[in-house]
């Protein structure tokens, strides 16, 4: 049985994009904007923006790819597991916590795997979902956003991003433990 909330969520997620586009275009038309011409004018930038981020994306993803392929990721996970165990963080989720910042598809695969093994309604299943939903692939965002405008010196952005991710991680553990005792 699907609750009303699930249904509303589903309707919203499938209707949101068409509705937003519809609203914007209709209001613009009423305000006598030349919608077609404006759209084409804006869309022109799509190609150049996408191409501009390629070098930054290659640089970042290759470094992360090498790190994972060499097995250094697994060693890192094992090395810090005593620390996380002491803090009450389940060691099964350590790889997810690290990869979540590096690769979106990689972490999605890990989360699916954890839910498959432990069940989506278990503590680990819920926590992996909350971690997945409350984190962003920080390094991808850094590479793409700064890459698009050619910024190479990112100053405190990386540190601030990592800080927010750690806060989200700690909060996920606390909240899932508290809300689903």
């Amino acid at each position, binding site marked *: 049985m699907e609750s009303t909330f699930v249904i509303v969520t589903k309707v919203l997620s499938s209707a949101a994009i068409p509705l937003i586009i519809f609203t914007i275009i209709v209001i613009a038309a009423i305000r006598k904007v030349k919608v077609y011409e404006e759209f084409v004018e804006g869309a022109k930038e799509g190609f150049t923006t996408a191409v501009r981020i390629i070098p930054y994306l290659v640089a970042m993803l*290759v470094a992360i790819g090498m790190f994972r392929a*060499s097995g250094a990721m697994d060693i890192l996970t094992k090395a810090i597991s005593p620390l996380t165990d002491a803090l009450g963080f389940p060691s099964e989720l350590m790889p997810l916590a690290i990869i979540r910042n590096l690769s979106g598809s990689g972490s999605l695969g890990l989360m699916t795997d954890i839910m498959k093994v432990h069940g989506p309604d278990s503590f680990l299943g819920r926590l992996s979902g909350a971690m997945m939903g409350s984190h962003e692939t920080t390094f991808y965002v850094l590479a793409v956003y700064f890459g698009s405008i050619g910024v190479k010196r990112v100053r405190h952005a990386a540190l601030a991003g990592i800080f*927010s991710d750690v806060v989200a991680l700690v909060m996920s553990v606390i909240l899932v433990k508290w809300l689903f005792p």
Partner: protein
Amino acid sequence: MLNYIWLGLIVVAIFVALGRDIREESNDRFKNGHAIGLEYAPGGLKPAGPNHFAGTAFLTRSAIAKLYGSDETKGMKSDTLLFPLDLLQSQTNPHVGALTMSIPTGAPPILADVAAAGGDATKIIGQARFDAAAFSAAGNMEFTPPSVHFRILAKVANDGILKIADTAVSLALGLIGVMALWLGIMKIAEAAGLVLLLAKLVRPIMTRVFPDVPHDHPAMGAMVMNMTANFLGLSNAATPLGLKAMEELNKLNSHAGTATNAMCMFLTINTTALTLVPATVIAIRLTMGSTNPTDIIMPTFLATLVSLILGVAFTRFIQRFFPIQGEVPQQA
């Protein structure tokens, strides 16, 4: 900072790969050049053409332990490993041939590693010595897998470097369509004055978080649009709008190539990913048979809210320690 992270990832990766490879070489983990004993049942191998046999054979736990050591058999679930094989007999010497062993599930990791090192993780192609006349009865044959050297460095080169470089480009090119669409829609919204309207609504908050950005600057509108898209879980729309916002923020940048305070703040807000509905997670939990897939909305939302607030405060606090090069840091 990114310089160090980038360098660190690559240097550590190479050192770890090299270290593991050297350890495997010095232990001779793969027993290069040595043969393992395969066994077959009566009628297990049948002629499949001239000089060609196919069928199934098996490896026992003790045969694997004899060659590779008993540690390597720990991953085996049963004592025998049944697998399909394909045998091409040499035209000049009927007792030797090329043997293709398909790796079944439940194979010990060492066999999977040998296969992966050969380029195809599903099979091992090596040399076999056998007596084809005896295939009607049970028997065994010697199988020499290909030698394996520096497999982890090779894996880093293939999976970590070449494949990923390719992926990165297709990822970027794959963005073109969605990017064009949302930048087009954004342009319409801008021309209709909608972006400005949205920016006006949240002006009190935005001017406090971004004190360096004039309240009527187009960057404000673009950032608000990006945050709205993120909040609604429309990640497809969020990236193009975010890139647009960065472009606008860069127009206020007097040091090309260096991030401004406003850019770092915007990035922090983006990485905290304040989302009302984490749609992907809910969809996956639904397919896994969760009784209430949306029950993670609350913890997710609260966790991101806290990380957003603390992240913004932290970013504001540390920006003074990262002065823009060539400028005296501002006294707080």
